[in-house]
């Protein structure tokens, strides 16, 4: 017998253990291998979810662990779903979500379309464009706070340069009307490269011979774009929209760093409000119900997108 690590291990295994292992079926051994992962999944994901659902029907407060926990039924859900403040937060979230996704898809696709052409410095430019998404959201939020400064901010000076509006006459983060757009601009700046990369993967997956066949048929560039490029990139684009939609629905760090939900509650997104309810006001039961509402919404949206994605792939 050749002397390899496996044979050495086999020789070192006590006979009773070896006999026991030899008696196991392939299926049992497979289960033994996946059991730790399943256990971790249950412990880290499934159990907290079920526990949160349970807490959402109580008045539990995590900062008062010894207080009596009362079963309040659907009262937490009723209060959240009739609260004008939370309704406004949902609208802020929708405004943020719709505009960031629309801008990121349009700009991301356009950038991918341009960068897909062969030119000198293509790789360098791609690397430079994707830098924003590699940065930490806390860092991005911090330096955009400086860029938005009315006195010293480069953004305000750029606006003055292009439009003539005095730089110190407006504050992007302090104005009720501008602050929602300030966070949209930063998120778009940070995450458009991500959409661009996914679109670029889609564009590069289109074989050249399809365009060559279209050229032979004298199809115009415009026609090629709408009948070849767009349908073939669409599954990739939908995937990007799915990722960005879910991410932005639970957007937290960037907005907290930039505006902290202000001025007033103009940029208070649902996730920021949820964190305040859970860990500043310590209304654990109430915030659990809030979290379940957001979870069901994201889960529902993700289901629609996965279905749409599969349909597009089947075409």
């Amino acid at each position, binding site marked *: 017998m050749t002397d390899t690590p496996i044979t050495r291990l086999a020789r070192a295994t006590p006979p009773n253990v070896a006999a026991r292992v030899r008696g196991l079926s392939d299926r049992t051994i497979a289960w033994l291998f996946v059991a730790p992962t399943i256990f971790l999944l249950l412990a880290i994901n499934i159990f907290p979810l079920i526990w949160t659902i349970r807490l959402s029907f109580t008045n539990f407060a995590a900062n008062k662990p010894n207080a009596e926990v009362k079963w309040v039924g659907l009262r937490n*859900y009723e209060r959240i*779903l*009739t609260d*004008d403040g939370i*309704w406004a937060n*949902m*609208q802020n*979230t*929708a405004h943020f979500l719709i505009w960031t996704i629309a801008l990121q898809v349009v700009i991301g696709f356009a950038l991918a379309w341009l960068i897909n052409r062969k030119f000198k410095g293509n790789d360098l430019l791609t690397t430079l464009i994707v830098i924003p998404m590699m940065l930490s959201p806390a860092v991005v939020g911090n330096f955009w706070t400086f860029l938005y400064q009315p006195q010293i901010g480069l953004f305000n000076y750029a606006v003055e340069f292009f439009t003539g509006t005095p730089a110190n006459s407006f504050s992007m983060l302090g104005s009720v009307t501008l602050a929602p757009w300030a966070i949209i601009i930063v998120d778009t700046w940070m995450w458009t490269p991500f959409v661009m990369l996914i679109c670029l993967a889609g564009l590069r997956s289109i074989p050249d011979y399809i365009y060559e066949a279209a050229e032979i048929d004298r199809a115009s560039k415009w026609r090629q774009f709408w009948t070849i490029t767009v349908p073939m990139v669409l599954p990739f684009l939908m995937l990007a929209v799915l990722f960005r939609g879910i991410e932005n629905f639970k957007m937290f760090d960037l907005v907290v760093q930039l505006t902290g939900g202000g001025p007033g509650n103009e940029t208070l997104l649902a996730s920021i409000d949820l964190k305040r309810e859970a860990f500043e006001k310590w209304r654990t039961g109430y915030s659990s119900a809030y979290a379940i*509402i957001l979870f*069901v*919404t994201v*889960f*529902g*949206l993700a*289901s*629609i997108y996965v*279905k749409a994605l599969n349909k597009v792939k089947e075409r």
Partner: protein
Amino acid sequence: MTTFLQGLARFRRGPWENLATVLIALGVVMLMQPFFLWAYTWSFIVTLIGTVMFIITSHFPQ
């Protein structure tokens, strides 16, 4: 329309999934629209019904 109704009656995956999708989309729109408070109040239950329906109907035969 007739095909859709027949699909529903025969518990086929396609039409039931479409119905669930419409409910989810409607629930999300109701949750985030700025016009009617009653729509916001009922949004969660609509989304929940749609989502649960989607999970169940995605196991129906094609």
